[in-house]
Structures are given as structure tokens and as C-alpha cells.
């Protein structure tokens, strides 16, 4: 059962990822990305990281995608066709990517991962404890750092988004 679900998810992810990077319509591209992100959330579920899957869905599918859609709406006519790269460049990049993928895969398959058979379920509380633990191996510092980062990002985003003032005052244009 899980196998089948995984394969379905994998196919969904790959297909929509490809669609997302090749679609010539902006909004569709974003929506395809949403599908991919949902697929990833599905993988998290399969793998028994429910909390992570939830975060994936809320932050990514919920927050980031909405953010991107907004920006699309703000800067584009929705139906605008995207310009595509030159075919030669597409082929070249594709080729490089395929070769890179080949390198990755051969490396992965030639490596013997010491897989531990298990079916442990990670609880949310364990994550929370670990995240806020200030003992050895605790993640309190990065956690706080990320919170500061988010704050800074928020402030920064606001400043930048309303940056017209700055340039007006300095009488600058790019």
C-alpha cells in the first residue's frame, strides 16, 4: 500500500515539478508548485513525520504559495505569457542537469547506506522538547536565531516593499 502511494506521490511530484518549471503561465506555475509541495507533505506523512508534514502544508502550501501568488498578482497580468529561454540554452542546461543527475544517482547507488530498520514514530512533543532544550545537543540557540531572523526578515520585507520613499528622497532610480 505505502509503496503504491509513494510511487503515486513521486510521479505527482516529478510531473508537477517539471510542469512548474516549464509552464508558460505564471499562475499555473505557482499552482503546480503547490501540488509538488503537497506531494512532499504526503511523503512526510508516509515517513511518519506528521508534524513536519503539517508545517510543510501550513508554511509552504499555505504561506509561501500565497505570498508568491500575491506577488504574481501584484506584478503581472495573470494571463501574461512567460518568455522562454533559448532552445539551445534549454538543451544545454537540460543536458548538464541530466549529467549532474547521473553523477548524483551513480554516487547514491554506489554508496552503501547503513539503513536501520525501524518504525518509530516521532512525536511532536519530542520535537518541541528538543527544540527548546538548552542541554547538550539542544536546539535552543538556533531556534532563537531563527526567530530573530524571521523578525528581521519581516522588518526587512516591509522596509524594502515600501522602499519608494527611500529612493524618492535620495532622488535615485536604478
Amino acid at each position, binding site marked *: 500500500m505505502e509503496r503504491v502511494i509513494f510511487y503515486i506521490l513521486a510521479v505527482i511530484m516529478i510531473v508537477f515539478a517539471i510542469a512548474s518549471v516549464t509552464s508558460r503561465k505564471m499562475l499555473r506555475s505557482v499552482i503546480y508548485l503547490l501540488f509538488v509541495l503537497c506531494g512532499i507533505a504526503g511523503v512526510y506523512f508516509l515517513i511518519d513525520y506528521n508534524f513536519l508534514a503539517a508545517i510543510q502544508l501550513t508554511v509552504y502550501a499555505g504561506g509561501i504559495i500565497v505570498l508568491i501568488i500575491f506577488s504574481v498578482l501584484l506584478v503581472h497580468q495573470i494571463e501574461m505569457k512567460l518568455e522562454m529561454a533559448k532552445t539551445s540554452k534549454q538543451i544545454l542546461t537540460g543536458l548538464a542537469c541530466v549529467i*549532474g543527475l547521473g*553523477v548524483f544517482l551513480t*554516487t547514491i547507488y554506489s554508496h552503501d547506506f547503513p539503513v536501520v530498520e525501524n518504525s518509530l514514530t516521532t512525536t511532536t512533543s519530542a520535537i518541541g522538547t528538543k527544540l527548546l532544550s538548552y542541554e547538550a545537543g539542544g536546539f535552543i540557540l538556533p531556534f532563537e536565531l531563527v526567530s530573530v531572523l524571521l523578525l528581521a526578515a519581516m522588518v526587512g520585507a516591509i522596509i524594502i516593499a515600501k522602499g519608494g520613499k527611500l529612493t524618492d528622497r535620495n532622488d535615485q532610480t536604478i
Partner: protein
Amino acid sequence: MNLGYILLIPLIPLVVFLLLGIFNQRIKPAISGYIGVFGLLVSTILSCYAAYQYFFVHGKVNGVYQTFVEKTVWMNFSDTLHIDMGIFIDPISVMMLVVVSTVSLMVHIYSRGYMKGDDGYTKFFAFLSLFSFSMYGLVLATNLFQIYIFWELVGVSSYLLIGYYYTKESAVAAAKKAFIVTRFADLGFLIGILIMGYYTGTYDFETLNDPEGNAILNWASTSFMGLSVLTWGLILIFIGGAGKSAMFPLHIWLPDAMEGPTPVSALIHAATMVVAGVFLVARLFPMYYFIEDGFALNIVAFVGAFSALFAAIIAITQTDIKRVLAFSTMSQLGYMMLALGVSGYDGHEGLGYMASMFHLFTHAMFKALLFLGAGSVIHAVHSNYLKDMGGLRKYMPITNITFLIAALAISGVPPFAGFFSKDEILVAVYEHNKLLYFVGVFVAGLTAFYMFRIYFGIFWGKETKYEHKPHESPISMTFPLLFLALMSILGGFIPFSDFVTADKAGFEAHLNYPLAAVAVVVGLIGIVLAWVFYKKESDLADRLANFFGPLYQWTSDKFYFDAIYLFITKKILFKRVAAPIAWFDRNIVDGTMNLIGNSTVKTSEKIKGMQSGKVQDYAFAFMAGVVILAIVFVYLWAE
């Protein structure tokens, strides 16, 4: 023998040159003329005094004339080789001192009249003094390099004086030609000197010429292409001498050099500088004679004979009187070379050597006289061409007489100077080689013919209409004529064989009457023929010219040697060598350098495009690089 005062002989003209050269604009022409003449006069007196001292008082020890040398090192090449400067007194240098002084003094005096009113009067005397200085230095040289130094200096004074009328294109061209042709010959001279210096280890005449010396005894030690290297050296040195003495085929500059003022032609291109080549061979005579049994000397003889003949033939057809005299000079120089070439060394064997020097002496006198006389004529009629002259004997009696004396002297009519010297040359040649003897006699006849051709043409013949009535020249010009005429008459009676001989010992020379008679008869035939052709107003000459047709044309055009040289220089050297090299330099060599520069710029233009400013391109490059590195390090280089 005290040599101190001899040093003054060259130095006085040098001082005069510097004085006149530096204060060129500030000296009044009249004064500069006096300064020049006075300087030369002192030198002449000193030269004569030196000659007297040398030949009659101090020179002879045990019946042999000694060599006196005074020298100082001028520059060191290496531990053994160095250039010395000094004075070298032996019979020929003393004799040359007298010749140079006499002719130069006469020319100086003459020029005061001839050059009167010319813009560059002072400059002219300055150059004359420079020339006199260089010529004195040349004859007094102690070694090959010193002679080369003054050799070049006389060359350059000749250049300056030929180009004296520098606004005239033809004079400029002639000066350039004279300098370059002799320079080319000097190239041979220089290489010859280098050979001599390297293989004998010295440049000194004293050491080189010593018959018992290293150079002469060991001539066979090194050879090149079947001949001793020293023979090669001598041949190359002879090329230098041939260039200065206008031997075939390096003669082409001499006729053109007549573009210079006439006194210059008399001094430089008749009496003194052009005999430098003869003097050089005479100076190295022991080497020429002893090394390889006189192989190089034979070349000298044949070149001399051929030049004598060649020039005499051309002289017949020239219409410019100065050119006739120029070819005559070349012919007589050929005579001297011929005499040297057939000479032996000891005693009476050395007759040729002595005859050559004798002829050099007498020729200097009568040829200078001829030129000065021609100058006097040109001064009067303002033309060089025979067609503009005729019947001048009535207007210019002194010139007429002196010119006649000179013409008789050069034709070998007794008792004039040329008769004695020429006779001795012919005797020497007769003893050596009969074929050359016939050439010599034939040339003697030709000489008489062409000399009297111009003599009759100028002073007799049909009177041309003159715009200004010709008149006799002033005393400053006629005095030298008279003096030189005197010398041309008396010069022959000097017992030269007592003084100037190859082994310096002296011998009794006698006239060889049968041979002398032959020469005189041939000369007289020449004169008579000239009389027949040119004295009477007849068209015989023209008819003869027409009869020979192309041959006449050839001769008149100097056998097209000028054309050949012109072809070689203009068409081959300029067009086929210099121009391609200049092109090659601008386009290939420089082009290569520019190409390197331009291709760098182009490459950078191309590469610049890679710096597109697009993050994606950089990302692509980054990724491609990572992939390549991964492939290299993971697969290809995986150990």
C-alpha cells in the same frame, strides 16, 4: 732627424680649417683667402725643407734611405692591436708631401681668383684646408688604420667640395655618388685591414713591410679558397685603393665629380686624392710583392692596364673638357697602377715602382696644370663644353701656352716631364709583359690624340661667337699656371731613381732609347691625327664618328657603366631590396605585433560577453563546473 716640425705640416691646415669653419660668417672673404694661402704656404715651405733634410742631409745612411717613425697610441683594441697616430717618413711620403703641398698651394692661390665673389668663399677655403690636412695625414700615416682614417677624411672633403654648389641637383648627386662608390670600395679596404690585423697582429707599415718580418715570411700559414688570407687582404685593400683611384669598375664617380669647382677637380680629382690608391699600393709594396709571389700585384697590373685603356677610349668621345680630363686622369692612374704591378723589388728590378712614383709626381704637376688651365678657360667662356669654345689662343695667351706645355707633357713628348716618367713605365712593362706593353703604347697614342683634340678644340679651330669677350685670367690665376708649367718642364729632369725606389737604396736609371723612340713616335702620331681631325675646320671627325656609329655611341656613353650602376642601385637595391624590407617591416614584423595586440583586444571583447550580469548564467557555469569537477574527481581520478 728631427720630426717635430713635420707635425706642423698637417696641423696648420687643420687650424686654418677650424678657424675658417667656426668663424665662417664673421671673417671677411678677402681675409679668409689670405689665411688659407698663408697656412698652406707655411706647410709648403716646411714640406720642402723636410724633403731637403730627408733626401740630402739626414735620410741616407749607408746608401739606404731610412724610415723615421714618430707615433703615439691613439686607441687600444686589445693588448696587441692598437691604432697609432704618428708620422712616417720615408721617400714616398716625403715625395707626396711635396706634391700635395705644391699642388695645394697653387690651387689655393688660383682659387682666390677663381672663386672671387662666390657666396661660400670662406667655406671653400675651409674645405680646401680640411682636405689638405687629411691628405697630409694620409701620406704621413704610420699604419693601416691611420691611413684608413685619413682616407675617409679625404673622402668626406671630396664629398663636401664636389657638393660645393649644393643648390645644383647634379652636384649633389655627383657628391653623393662619389662618396658612396668610394665608401663601397672602402668596405673592401676595411675588411682587408681587419684581415691584416687579425692574421699579422699588427697594423704598422714598418712591421708589415719588413721583408724579413713575420707577416711576409709566414704568408702561407693560413689560406682561404686556395689563396693565402693575406693575398685576400691585399686584394681587398686594393679594392679600396681602386675605389679612390677610380680604377675600373669603380671609376664611375670620377667623371661626375667634375661637378665640383674646377680648382677642386685639379687638386682632389687629378693631382692628390685620386693618387691615394696608387700611394696605398706603393706603401704596402713589399707585401704585395712578396706575398704569394706577387699574385695580388698581378691583379693590380691588369686592372691598371685595363683602366688605362678603357678610360683613354672613352676620353676620345667626351665633349665636356673636364670630363675628358677626368678620364685622362683615370687613364694615367691606370698607368701608375700598371707600373706598380709589373715592378720588382731590388735595385733595377724596382724600376716600375720608381717609374710609378715618378709618374705620380709629374702627372700631379701637368694634370693640375691642365685642370687649372681648363678652369681658366671655363672662367672665361662660362661653359664646360667644347662646342662653346674655339680660337681662344688670341684672347688667352698665357693659358694657351701653359695648356700646350701640359698637353705635350702628358703626351710624352721630350723634354717635358711626362716623357721621362712614361718612358720608364713603358720600359718596366716591356721587361715584364709584352702584351701589357702594347696596351701601354697604344694608350700613350690615344692620350696624345685626345689631349690635342681638346687643345685644338679650345684654342684653335673655328671661333665661336662669345657673348662676353673672353679675356685672360687675373694674375692670381695665371701665376699657378706658369709655376706648374715650369714644373712640367723641369720635373722630368729630377733623378728620381736616386730618391724613390722600392728597396730605398736607389739605382741608376737610363733612358732606353729604342723604346723611348717608339713611345714618342706613337705620341706624335696621335698629335698629328688630332691636328688632322680637329685643327682644320673639317667634318672628318664627324664622318668618322658616323662611320663607327654604335661604337661611337657606346664610347660616348661611357660603355653604359653608369646605367648599369644605376640599374643595380635604383632597380635592384632600392626597389627589390630596400622597398620590400621596408614593406616587410611595416606589414609583417609590425603586423605581427599589431596582430598580437588586436587579437588580445578581440579575445577580450569575446570573453566580455561571458560576464553577462545574469545570475542564471553564473549559476549555470557554477553548476557545470561542479558537474565537471565531480566527474573528474569521482570517476576519472578516483583512486
